[in-house]
């Protein structure tokens, strides 16, 4: 077992706040999560209207897209942060998920939920294939093999798109469960929230079981892990399949949410964005993926809202800011990533972790290990 995990478990027991406080904390968090969509939808809290600025310029659709990205970011963090397999090809599994969801929905007439399962299965299988190079090469060469896989999958996606759909993109069917159609922002929120929470919990909990500890041991020292009787090769493929399945699920959900996806969406930048997310959030922890995705997806609209606000201020500078918002956002993001890499290698989660452990760690329903 990895040293880090033992230390983590020991800290959990000694640092935790009294149980009642922690239960209250979780209840408050749940209440906020449940009330949030109504605040964002009706732009008011308990009947008091809020200005756009007070809501930080955030809308419900950004929150929904963030929920989807959390699944993608956490799955990449599982692969890269927890298992140490650096991949720049994560966009490929997003593309695959949306393609399989669209194809099974259109050609096989599968219902919505079945296409999600199909996307996950396809993602897992493709993950095994994409993980095969990891048996032969490691480090930098493996990163390049994921880059190659990215270009190959995006090419296949483009061919599928041009063959069966038109240039503007692949149209995905409506998200219908039986006769109930998920068509509004609030419905999507309450559909996505449990999926995201369950996916994160599932990935997190595997880390506390035998396989998950083997994964961490493999990351920390592959030879030692192999010597301890772990079949490193099979484990790598398993991790790849597991992570890719969730990435494909996120891709399929995103496709349904946007209702139209094109090959151009899944560029290399799309994949890079997820690496940036886990670096900003913090490598190797589930919370890191969640925090990173929240920061990465909500910060642009907060910045843009701030830029609009500055506009009322004096000078050419404000209009310059406003005219170049995407560039300013990219500049800030690039600088944040560079600064975090240099000054805070554990990401934002590294700061928040002690606090979080006191709040949540060792809850009564969480098995004592």
């Amino acid at each position: 077992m990895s040293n880090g995990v033992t230390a983590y478990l020991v800290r959990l027991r000694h640092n935790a706040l009294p149980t009642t406080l922690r239960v209250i904390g979780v209840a408050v968090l749940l209440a906020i999560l449940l009330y949030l969509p109504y605040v964002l939808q009706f732009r008011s809290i308990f009947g008091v209207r809020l200005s756009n600025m007070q809501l930080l310029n955030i809308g419900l659709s950004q929150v929904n897209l963030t929920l989807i990205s959390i699944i993608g970011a956490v799955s990449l963090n599982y692969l890269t942060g927890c298992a140490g397999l650096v991949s720049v090809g994560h966009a490929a599994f997003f593309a695959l998920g949306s393609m399989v969801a669209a194809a099974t929905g259109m050609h096989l007439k599968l219902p919505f939920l079945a296409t999600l399962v199909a996307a996950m299965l396809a993602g897992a299988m493709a993950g095994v294939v994409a993980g095969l190079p990891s048996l032969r090469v490691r480090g930098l060469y493996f990163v390049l093999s994921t880059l190659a896989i990215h270009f190959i999958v995006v090419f296949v996606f483009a061919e599928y798109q041009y063959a069966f759909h038109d240039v503007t993109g692949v149209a995905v069917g409506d998200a219908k469960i039986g006769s109930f159609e998920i068509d509004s922002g609030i419905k999507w929120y309450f559909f996505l929230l449990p999926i995201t929470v369950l996916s994160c919990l599932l990935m997190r909990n595997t880390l506390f079981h035998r396989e998950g500890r083997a994964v961490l041991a493999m990351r920390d020292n592959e030879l030692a892990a192999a010597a301890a009787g772990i079949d490193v090769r099979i484990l790598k493929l398993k991790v790849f399949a597991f992570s890719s399945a969730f990435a494909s699920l996120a891709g399929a959900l995103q496709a349904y949410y946007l209702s139209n996806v094109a090959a151009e969406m899944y560029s290399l930048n799309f994949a890079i964005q997820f690496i940036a997310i886990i670096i900003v959030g913090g490598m190797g922890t589930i919370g890191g993926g969640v925090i990173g995705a929240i920061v990465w997806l909500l910060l642009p609209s907060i910045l843009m809202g701030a830029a609009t606000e500055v506009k009322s201020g004096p000078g050419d500078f404000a209009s310059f800011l406003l005219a170049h918002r995407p560039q300013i956002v990219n500049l800030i993001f690039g600088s944040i990533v560079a600064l975090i890499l240099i000054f805070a290698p554990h990401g934002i989660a590294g700061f928040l972790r002690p606090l979080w452990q006191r709040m949540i760690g060792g809850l009564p329903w969480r098995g004592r290990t």
Partner: protein
Amino acid sequence: MLSQFIFSGLALGSIYGLVALGFTVIYKATQVFNFAQGMLMVCGAYFAVTASIHLGLPFPLTIAFILVGAGILGIAIYFLLIKPLGGQALLPMIMITIALSIILRAVIELIYGGAPLTLRLPLPSGVFVLGDVRISQLHVTAAVVSWLCMLLFIVFFRRSRAGLLMRATADGYEAAVLSGIRVDRINAAAWAIGTMLAAIGGVFLCQLQLVSVELENIGLLALPAVVIGGLQSVPGAILGGLLVGLIEQLASGYISPKARDIFIYVPLLLILFIRPWGLFGQKELGRV
């Protein structure tokens, strides 16, 4: 048709080889896998725009401006971003170069606007016909200059004192430090040279196409080029560049421009499976 594709493939491949060579220099010296190499190339093109359009410099001074600008940029990158990270794990080192390319792209778009620009440098631009091959003089110039730069670099690397120090540092970092080599200077010089080589490639590419940040995608073809050639190998980078240029022209000429990426990245995957150290590289030994 075939000879036409082969000719333009080799000419483009020479430019890729130049950019890939810059990449290899940086990788050998600092072990940084530079995803920003494409963007450094774009910077070269925009240095040319600044010197020739904004400052109105004559052509020789434009060239000097590009080289000096690229050199300073490379040194600044090394001291601001690479050195503070100092030999961390693989992913942070890759990600810092990606962050660099995001920042450079944003800065370029802020200064020059996002729209593509046209830049005409006084380089030979005519076409002459040889048999059934149309030979553009720009292609020939690009290839000749690229080969001259490569030759110059190889002579510098093999024969000069600074080149010797560079090879020593690449061979053994700690041994170099212990022998009193100022490793920081050597590494900064490697980044300066790598950036200059990319910038020269960028100047030629922006003559063949419009000046825009989208040139980065072409510059990224240097990555498969170096891996196919062999990461640590100088001749490998050059030949890898030529190979990628040939594949690109043949694939987009005979099959379809969209198929280009496939014909470059599938061989890359095969190379990784069969000969991960590349065609010319040395087999790396695993360390415990």
